[in-house]
């Protein structure tokens, strides 16, 4: 009884770290720009394929390609921002959320089908020489790839936190989250802050995608489910604290695996959505955090 349950919770925790990482990117972008980029999951998918092909064609270790994948997604982020999202900067907040949702939706459709064309619908994953290795503690298996992913997610999170707390640019970003107009009055170039946070979000998606492709599997259609996970976690964790968001990811992961354990595996996906709707309906103001005035 203990071991299977603990095992399932550990797996939940490990996958939850990736949910958290995906959500942190989404919520960083949303917090600063009020862009609801529902193509975030597709960016993650692109990151996954970048690592997959680097490994398959060139034999590069996925943990080595991680920074490259992030840079790759950063570039894609710049292109997408300039091409699409920059047009929506000046809209009112509500219109901005609405239109970015629609544009992001169109974008996800495009990326998903381009991926399908290029790489077929096959499910893929990276299998390295150490993929099957694991250490066991009290009978519970800890696959090292997934544990390493948790470590990397934590490092990325701390780096982000440090950046936001310690650097001038990071503070400018936080100021923009609180009140973009007041931030402008500080001489902060909002357009640049928006671009920066957008591409950082994309890079984080790339990192998450890379880790998903090593520890789990990727396919062209994975985007929507990851975007939904990101949204769920964002709502659970609230905006403002990325640590909170990350913890929200772990909560979702563990809840899913507990559901899988106690009910059936087929309802894992549903539980997060139900949670999401409950929070949406009963704490709408707590969503995505409200600012204190």
């Amino acid at each position, binding site marked *: 009884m203990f071991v299977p349950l603990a095992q399932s919770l550990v797996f939940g925790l490990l996958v939850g770290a990736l949910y958290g990482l995906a959500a942190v990117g989404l919520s960083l972008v949303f917090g600063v720009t009020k862009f609801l980029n529902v193509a975030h999951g597709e960016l993650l998918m692109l990151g996954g394929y970048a690592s997959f092909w680097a490994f398959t064609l060139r034999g590069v270790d996925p943990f080595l390609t991680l920074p490259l994948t992030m840079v790759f997604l950063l570039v894609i982020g710049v292109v997408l921002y300039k091409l699409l999202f920059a047009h929506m900067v000046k809209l009112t907040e509500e219109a901005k*959320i609405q239109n970015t*949702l629609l*544009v992001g939706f169109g974008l996800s*459709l*495009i990326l998903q089908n381009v991926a399908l064309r290029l790489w077929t619908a096959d499910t893929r994953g990276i299998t390295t020489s150490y993929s099957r290795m694991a250490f066991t503690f009290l009978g519970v298996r800890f696959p090292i790839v997934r544990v390493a992913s948790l470590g990397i997610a934590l490092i990325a999170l701390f780096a982000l936190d440090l950046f936001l707390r310690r650097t001038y640019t990071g503070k400018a970003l936080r100021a923009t989250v609180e009140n973009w107009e007041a931030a402008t009055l500080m001489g902060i170039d909002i357009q640049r802050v928006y671009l920066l946070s957008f591409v950082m979000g994309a890079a984080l998606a790339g990192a998450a995608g890379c880790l998903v492709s090593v520890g789990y599997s990727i396919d062209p259609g994975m985007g929507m489910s990851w975007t939904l996970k990101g949204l769920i976690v964002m709502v659970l964790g609230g905006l403002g604290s990325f640590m909170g968001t990350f913890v929200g990811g772990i909560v979702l992961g563990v809840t899913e695996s507990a559901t899988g354990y106690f009910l059936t595996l087929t*309802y894992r996906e549903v539980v997060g959505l139900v949670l999401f709707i409950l929070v949406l309906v009963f704490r709408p103001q707590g969503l995505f955090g409200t600012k204190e005035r």
Partner: protein
Amino acid sequence: MGRKQVIFIALLIAILVLLPVVVKKDNIINLALLVLLYICLASSWNILGGYTGQTNLGHAAFFGLGALSTRFLWMSGWSLLPSVLAGGLLAVAFALLIGIPAFRLRGVYFAIGTLALAQILYITVGNVFSDISSLRPQDLATYQLVPRYYFFLVLALLITGTTYLLVNSKLGLGMMAVREEEEAAESLGVSALKHKLLALSISAFFAGLSGGAFAYYHVGYYPRFPFSPEWTFDSMMMVYIGGAGTIIGPIIGALFFVVVRELLALKLVELHLIVFGILFILVVLFLPGGFVEAWKKMQAAFARRSKERGVKVSFQTTDD
């Protein structure tokens, strides 16, 4: 409506009615039927999404519920029409159930909330009804496409006609006021919640009926198939590309969608979705009125040009 328009519409309906009589090819009729199906879906989405301004990303849930219950009732011996009607009503019941909490959510929260709800149904239905749903042998033996085609035709006319009456009524004006500015509408005594719920119910009812028609039409499918989010996304794109908040928009959008899909499907399977994705983004960014607006703009530009030319001509005559 002007006289020209009335004649045009009458002509169009006549063509649609006569189509199966003239064209005997099943694949053409089937294509026309698909256009009608998408007109139904898109037009019903348009009532809430286009006219009332509430982006519903869970439309497939209504379509799916209609299909699910119709199929169940019809196969268990009910006759067709009551089954389909029950499907529509079930969709309304569900819509009302979720509508009140969902409309506490403004703007985008409504959109993602409805998406989540539809996903819950999609997955759950897939889990509960995992076997393919096929028509009974006796239905299969007598299966005919033409009655299905007429069923969809009637439904499409019903939805379009209702939309027309609706938007020219006080209710419709209220819905559009809510879309334009909710606070302002409320301050004029228009209850936003009431209008949204009404629009949602009508929209859901028609989507449910369309689902029922789908259950009548489709030979064999997995019960979760009509719940798939693609139905929602496709409808939404058709509405936007054609022209949201117009009657003709979803019709043009649906026709365009099916035709382009057929043309491109010959070469590459998914290409049409890429094309639609791009078009959709362009419309959202640069042409919020879709094709309808583009057409109006072109007409206006044309009228201006010919006017200018007219001025020139008159100068020439005075010169002479």
